[in-house]
């Protein structure tokens, strides 16, 4: 009996220690923490859910939308997230939240290759352990030999990580904005970065087999969202300058939205008319907006959402604790911008 008790105490202390270690030594890649913050949101406190590729988290700042229009939004997008992973992400997200509007970035529909397998694995790796993660890891994005690593991402504890290569001490010690316990904005941390871009249109034909697979996956996601009675907006964000000019993607969004009552699409011509990017100062790199561009686009986009979904967005009144959280994170974002030399 004494030994049994000792064993239980030993294992309990070990589990406690591992949990503590996971918080201390987690690499400081902010997108790794999206589910951590998501799970601490008050249940059913979201108006808008954003999902898709990095175009979402680089170009749309939920805190700016909160500050502008007073609705809550959260971004569960992942780097180059493909549609298979997105389906599992949506299912996981709807376990605790029932947002009225879901923004879906369909960029990867017109992808040309599946060279970003490691990135997909990283997206799945970040999910909380559960049936949705299991489902995602049993899919084609994860080879059998990698499944265990994806399901139990011990890499987070270790001196080397799968995607980013080597993690240095700065990844552990640099407790910047991203490493806080709650962080509604998890975009790029280098807020001051800017790259001058000359816009070109070199859209290319996509991989047909991949497209068919993604098309089926998107329809599965949309069927799921239909069952959840929420509005869906298919978007291409403005920094996606190669693709927003692409007839493939626009026609696709148009065709899909005609099949669902609850699905509409954001006609990218608007970018030419209403929201025009300054390619000299608002781009982070070839395909993402920087913080300045993201802030301006978030203001524009939040007003568009507010006007389009005023009924739905008005219904989800945020509780005081949620408001407090969003406001605190917005204030922190402003302070961080000042630290980075980007504040007013």
């Amino acid at each position: 009996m004494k030994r049994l008790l000792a064993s239980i105490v030993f294992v309990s202390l070990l589990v406690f220690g591992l949990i503590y270690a996971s918080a201390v030594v987690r690499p400081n890649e902010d997108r790794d923490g999206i589910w951590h913050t998501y799970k601490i949101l008050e249940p059913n406190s979201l108006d808008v859910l954003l999902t898709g590729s990095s175009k979402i988290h680089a170009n749309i700042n939920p805190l700016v939308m909160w500050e502008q229009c007073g609705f809550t939004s959260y971004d569960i997008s992942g780097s180059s997230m493909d549609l298979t992973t997105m389906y599992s992400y949506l299912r996981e997200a709807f376990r605790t939240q029932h947002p009225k509007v879901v923004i879906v970035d369909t960029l990867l529909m017109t992808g040309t290759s599946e060279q970003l397998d490691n990135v997909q694995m990283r997206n799945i790796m970040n999910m909380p352990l559960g049936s949705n993660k299991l489902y995602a890891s049993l899919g084609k994005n994860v080879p059998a030999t990698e499944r265990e690593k994806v399901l139990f991402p011990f890499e987070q504890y270790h001196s080397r990580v799968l995607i980013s290569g080597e993690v240095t001490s700065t990844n552990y010690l640099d407790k910047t904005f991203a490493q806080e316990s709650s962080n509604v904005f998890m975009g790029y941390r280098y807020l001051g970065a800017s790259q001058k871009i000359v816009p070109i249109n070199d859209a290319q034909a996509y991989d047909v087999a991949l497209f068919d697979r993604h098309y089926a996956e998107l329809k599965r996601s949309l069927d799921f969202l239909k069952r959840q009675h929420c509005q869906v907006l298919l978007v291409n964000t403005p920094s996606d300058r190669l693709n927003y000019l692409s007839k493939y993607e626009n026609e696709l969004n148009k065709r899909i939205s005609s099949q669902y009552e609850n699905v509409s699409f954001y006609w990218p011509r608007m970018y030419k008319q209403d929201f025009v990017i300054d390619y000299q100062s608002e781009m982070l790199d070839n395909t993402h907006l920087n913080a300045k561009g993201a802030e301006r686009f978030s203001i524009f986009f939040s007003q568009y959402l507010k006007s389009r979904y005023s009924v739905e967005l008005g219904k989800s009144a945020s509780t005081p604790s949620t408001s407090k959280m969003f406001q605190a994170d917005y204030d922190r974002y402003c302070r961080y911008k000042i630290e980075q030399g980007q504040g007013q």
Partner: protein
Amino acid sequence: MEFLTSLTGMMSFTGITYLVFLTCAVFIFFLLPGAKTRCVWLLGISSFFFLLYSPKFFWVIALVTVLAYSIGRALDVFQNKSSGMRKAVLALGILVTATALIVTKYSDFSIGILNRVFVLAGSSLQLPLLKLVMPIGISFWTFQTIAYIADVYLGKTKAEKNLLYFSASVIFFPIMTMGPIARVQDLAPQLSKKYTFDYERMRSGLLLMLWGYFKKLMVADRLAVFVGTVFGNVHNYSGKVNGLMFLVAAVFYAAQLYTDFSGYTDIVRGSARIFGVDLPLNFTAPYFARSVAEFWRRWHITLMDWLKNYVYIPLGGNRKGKVRKYLNILAVFFVSGLWHGAGFTYIIWGLLNGFYQLAGSVLKPFNDKVVKILKIDRDSTGHKIFQTVFTFLLITIAWVFFRANSLSDALYMVERMFMPTIWIFTDGSMTQQGLTATEIMIVLLSIGLVWVVDYCKFEKKADIMTWLTTQHLIYRWLIYYALIFIIVIFGHYGGTYNAADFVYFKF
């Protein structure tokens, strides 16, 4: 079948999946009543374990098991028959159990040799390679079953009458993939006896596993990055990989191979101990050996025992004169090389080790004379260290052939590995082989710890693990926790990590 194929590769001895699998297996094992039910359970989970690795080849191990069992029984039945009859049954038994190994492992090697002969003969005929996949652990369970048949034939053991215990001994999941090559007659009695839960054995099993994880994840997997970089860029003419770097990589490979295989052995011996099964030792700190012959008595002991009992002794051992003895030694190491892999690098590696031993025997009188003239005290620490280092160097040179991608790569490395390019230690070359300075430091400290533990256990007969269990609970737990957290936090998992890649898996 499709479902099982999709799961192939999921189970790895160093993964969480294995720990979860083991926990469930142990929990249910102790809930079951009676030895037979438990043995059925072990056979079931072992079969499942095999299916996770080689779902398409389960029939092969099942067939080999049933055939070996039947041959053993037949040899028992025919024990009063003519020796010709028994020999025929023995030959048949060995042939049928070894067929799968020979076909899957050596067919392409043989075809490759034939194709070369055709080219040399000026023929344009080229036979296509079969590219057959080997069932997991085939080299190990084939040797185990051959040993069993031979032992029954030689009357060293009685044939196992119970197919359940026999099958569980062959397909026992801890040993099925990479050994140790345990004897059926040692395993079957342990599996047929009802094992009562023993806290001390459980604890020592878990500790042994923990130590295995330390060796594998702190040393072997980290060194694999460095070793892979150097061995994979042998002809890099930038000067970054050359000269002494080859020696460093070879020394690191020696450490990697030992920690990888002995780490695995610790994990499986620990796992088996939890089920009340004692598996034989496979390593007794081989790098402390003072001669190559001693090294081979301390390295992969179960394989060397097998080769001694079923190759060396049947060939005459040392009973038929010196020349025959030397030829027998060469034969043993030739078979050892061939067993490890169907390739010329393995054969050269094996023969080189055989040659070392021959040279040791032939030069012994000369060596004795030198020692006498120089008045060297054979028991002095300096002499012992010299012998140990010299043996290690000889073994390390042989490992280059074992690891190199080709014979030409190996020769290229050996030619250059003693060039005095000492600047590699100061010009940053060391940190350009995939490991940072911190990681090299971590690996060196870890090797140091392994060295100390091995030295205490096998040289001073003071087992640190046993000592640990006698300490006060607080100290004990602190050390356990420290070891676990060091492995979890500093173990090598990223980059090129693949827990399934134990070096000996491919053999």
